[in-house]
């Protein structure tokens, strides 16, 4: 049986793969965005001082 054709299990397995990958991506993206925002804020403050 092909992994892309698991019959009734297709939905359950691939949804698990999708939400897990999405969660990892969002977790790193959120951390990256937080870091970028703080660095921007500090740079702006340095320029205005």
């Amino acid at each position: 049986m092909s992994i892309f054709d698991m019959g009734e299990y297709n939905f359950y397995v691939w949804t698990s793969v999708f939400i897990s990958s999405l969660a990892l991506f969002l977790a790193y993206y959120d951390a990256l965005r937080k870091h970028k925002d703080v660095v921007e804020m500090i740079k702006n403050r340095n320029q205005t001082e």
Partner: protein
Amino acid sequence: MGLKAIYKYGSPPNFYRFVTRLEPWCLYFGLLLILIGSAGGLFIAPEDYQMGDAFRIIYFHVPSAYLSMSAYAAMGFASIIGIVWRSNVAFSVAKSIAPFGALMTTIALLTGMLWGKPMWGTAWVWDARLTSEFILLLLYLGYITLHASIREQKKADRSASLVAILGIINLPIIHYSVVWWNTLHQASTISKLDSPSIVGEMLWPLLVMITGYMFFFVAVICRASSAEVLKREKRSNWVKEI
């Protein structure tokens, strides 16, 4: 050595330099392991004789469940260090772990439901393992909400840390819930590496995935906690040089 490391990396500039250097290594190594583990679990591991291909959800469910508990243990440990040594860096680390831990707990619960539906015939039962994991999610959310609801930074850190420390008691309950009570959830698969209840072809992708998730977790926490440290230290001279 342990205390020396705490004092050395308790200094915000030292911590910031260390985590920004560590993060890319953990990120790329973690992603590589996750790719190898996913390929091994989805394409190489044989079909389970009872569960068929549905067992492949284990490669996403177990690493996120492991991480949900490990992250909480790390958050509790950082909170203890924060309270005992009044370390701003430790509080920053604990605060950075909370959203990631909550996310991993949610994924563990969701993938568990996706596995439970075809195997048990139901996505949710209030059995000991599922309920204690759900309480873990509430503890993470409690930490995040409490921290966000107190304006004064030090007070928020200390109050939220108490929640994190008290919640540690839930970790052994989650782990041993399948031993102490009759649960629909299966017993541990790899709690003892010398006698796992899973064959080698199925086991190696799982171990690779767990290790990959751990490295990825360290990378995310390095990045998030460095942002938190910068935010707290924004008026310091060393931050102006960045």
